[in-house]
C-alpha cells in the first residue's frame, strides 16, 4: 500500500468519514458510489482506517459476547408445540370448523433440580375421550405413541412409518416385521418429529417416570390428584384417579423430539426407549400401528407399583 507515501495529500482529502459511514461500510450498506468513495478515502487515511478497524473489532466482540445469552433451539420441539396448537380437532373436538387453534393445557415442569420445583397436575385432559373407548377392554396397560407432529409435518418419517404400517392386522406383533437385528426389542424407525405418549389403564398410585438423557423439556398430563416430582433429567408422576371417576387413570407425556434420548418407565419397568435411531420396546410387549398410532400392550402393572 502506498498510503503513507501520499500523506502530503491528506490535507486535500475529503473530510474524514464519520462513524455512520464507517459502520455502513462495514455492514455493506453504502451504495456502490459511496462505497467506492469511502474505500478511496480509507486507503489514504490511517485515522479513518483505525476507526474502521475499531468499529469492526467492537462489532465482532459484541456478536461473540451476545451468544452467552443464547440457548440451543430445538426446531423439532417448536414444530411439536406448533402442531399441538394447530390440531384443534384432535385435541378438543370442536364443533364445526374452527378458525383459531386451541392450545392444550400444557404442564411443562422444568427438569433442573434447582428451578421450578412446583408442578400442578392438569385437569382432566381433553384428549382422553378421543381414544379411551377403543381401549377400554385392554387387559393390561396400553401405551400409545401418536405421531402428532407427523400430521402437521407430512414429510416426517413417523408418518411414513405409520402409513407404511396401516395395513398391519390388528394385534400382529410389529416385531415380526420390524425386529431390529441386534436386539430383542421392537424397533420402529423414527428420526424426527416429537412424540405424544399416552399410558392408559394404570393402577392407582402407579409411578410413571420419564428420563431425558438428551433434551430439555417434557410435558406431562395426569388426572387431578396426581403428583409430580422432578430431578435432574427426570420427571416422575404418581398417577391417581380423578375423584369423580373410578376408572383406571391415564397419563400423557410429550417428548420434544425423537432425535433425542429418553426413557419411559412405569412401575419400575422400562416401557419405551427413544434413541436417535428409533423407538425400542421391551420384548414382552406387542406392538401394532393401526389407526394412526403405534399401540403397545404391556403386562398389567401391580397396584401402587413404586419406583
Amino acid at each position, binding site marked *: 500500500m502506498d498510503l503513507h507515501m501520499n500523506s502530503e495529500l491528506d490535507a486535500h482529502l475529503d473530510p474524514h468519514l*464519520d*462513524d*455512520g*459511514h*464507517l*459502520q*455502513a461500510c462495514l*455492514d455493506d*450498506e453504502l451504495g456502490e458510489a459511496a462505497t467506492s468513495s469511502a474505500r478511496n478515502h480509507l486507503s489514504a487515511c490511517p485515522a479513518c482506517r483505525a476507526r474502521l478497524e475499531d*468499529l469492526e473489532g*467492537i*462489532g465482532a*466482540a*459484541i*456478536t461473540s*459476547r*451476545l451468544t*452467552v*445469552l*443464547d*440457548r*440451543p*433451539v430445538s*426446531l423439532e420441539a*417448536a*414444530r411439536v*408445540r*406448533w402442531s399441538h*396448537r*394447530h*390440531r*384443534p*380437532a*384432535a385435541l378438543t373436538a370442536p364443533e364445526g*370448523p*374452527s*378458525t*383459531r*387453534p386451541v392450545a392444550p393445557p400444557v404442564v*411443562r415442569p*422444568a*427438569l*433442573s433440580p*434447582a*428451578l*421450578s420445583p412446583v408442578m400442578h397436575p392438569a385437569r382432566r385432559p381433553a384428549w382422553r375421550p378421543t381414544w379411551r373407548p377403543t381401549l377400554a377392554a385392554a387387559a393390561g396397560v396400553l401405551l400409545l405413541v401418536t405421531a402428532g407432529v407427523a*400430521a*402437521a*409435518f*407430512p*414429510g416426517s418419517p413417523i408418518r411414513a412409518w405409520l402409513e407404511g404400517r396401516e395395513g398391519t392386522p390388528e394385534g400382529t406383533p410389529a416385531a415380526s416385521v420390524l425386529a431390529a437385528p441386534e436386539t430383542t426389542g421392537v424397533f420402529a424407525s423414527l428420526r424426527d418429529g416429537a412424540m405424544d405418549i399416552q399410558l392408559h389403564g394404570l393402577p392407582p398410585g402407579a409411578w410413571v417416570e420419564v428420563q*431425558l438423557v*438428551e*433434551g*430439555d423439556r417434557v410435558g406431562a398430563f395426569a388426572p387431578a390428584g396426581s403428583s409430580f416430582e422432578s430431578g*435432574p*433429567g427426570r420427571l416422575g408422576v404418581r398417577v391417581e384417579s380423578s375423584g369423580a371417576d373410578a376408572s383406571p387413570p391415564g397419563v400423557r407425556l410429550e417428548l420434544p423430539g425423537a432425535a433425542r434420548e429418553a426413557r419411559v418407565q412405569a412401575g419400575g419397568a422400562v416401557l419405551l426407549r427413544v434413541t436417535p435411531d428409533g423407538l425400542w420396546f421391551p420384548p414382552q410387549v406387542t406392538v401394532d400401528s393401526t389407526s*394412526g398410532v403405534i399401540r403397545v400392550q404391556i403386562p398389567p402393572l401391580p397396584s401402587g407399583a413404586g419406583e
Partner: protein
Amino acid sequence: MGEGDVSARGTVLNGRGHSGAESRNGNGVDVNFERIFDEVYPQLFRYSLRVSGDADLAEDTAQEAFVRLLDQDVSGGVSGGIPGARAWLFTVALRLLRDRARVEGNRARLLEAHPVRPDLPDAARAPDEEAVRSAEIRRVRQALEALGERDRTLLLLREEGFSYAELAAEVGVQPGSVGTLLARARRRLMDELNGGTA
C-alpha cells in the same frame, strides 16, 4: 386424524412438505409456511430470548408471532415473501415482548433475569465455569439494559441480519441514520461491557 379435520388455517399447514403446496398471500407472493417456520423460528427465538432473558417467554413469543402470521396470511397476507414475513414476525415479537413487559411492569426482570433454567448440559459444567457464565450473562444483560430501547432493538436486530432499510422501518428512523445509530449503540454497549464509562 385426517388432515381434513383441521381448520381453514390448517390448509396452509397441511400443504407443507407434500408437493410444495404453498399459501398465497394478498400480494401474490407465494410463501411456504414451513420454510418460513424453519428459517425464521430459530432467529425469532434467539432474538426474543436475548430481549427477554426468559426462554419460556421467548418460545411463547415466537409461537404466538407465527400464529399471528397465519392469521395474517389467511386474511390477506404479508408482503415481501420470506424477508417480508420475517420482518413482520420480528415486529410482532417485539410488540408482544414490549406489551408483556409493560403489563407486568417487570422490565427490569426482562433484562436482569437469568435464564429461567439452565440447559441440561449445564449440569455437566464445572461449578466454576457455571459461575463465570452466570456472571457474564448478568454483565451482558445489564449492558443491554443500559442502552435505550431503540438502540437495543437496532443492535439486536442487526445481529439477526436485518438490513438498514428494515431496521429503519422497525424503529422509525431514516435509513441514512441507521449506521450512525448502530455505531453509537455498539460503542456504548462495548463501554458498558467493559465496565461503563459514565
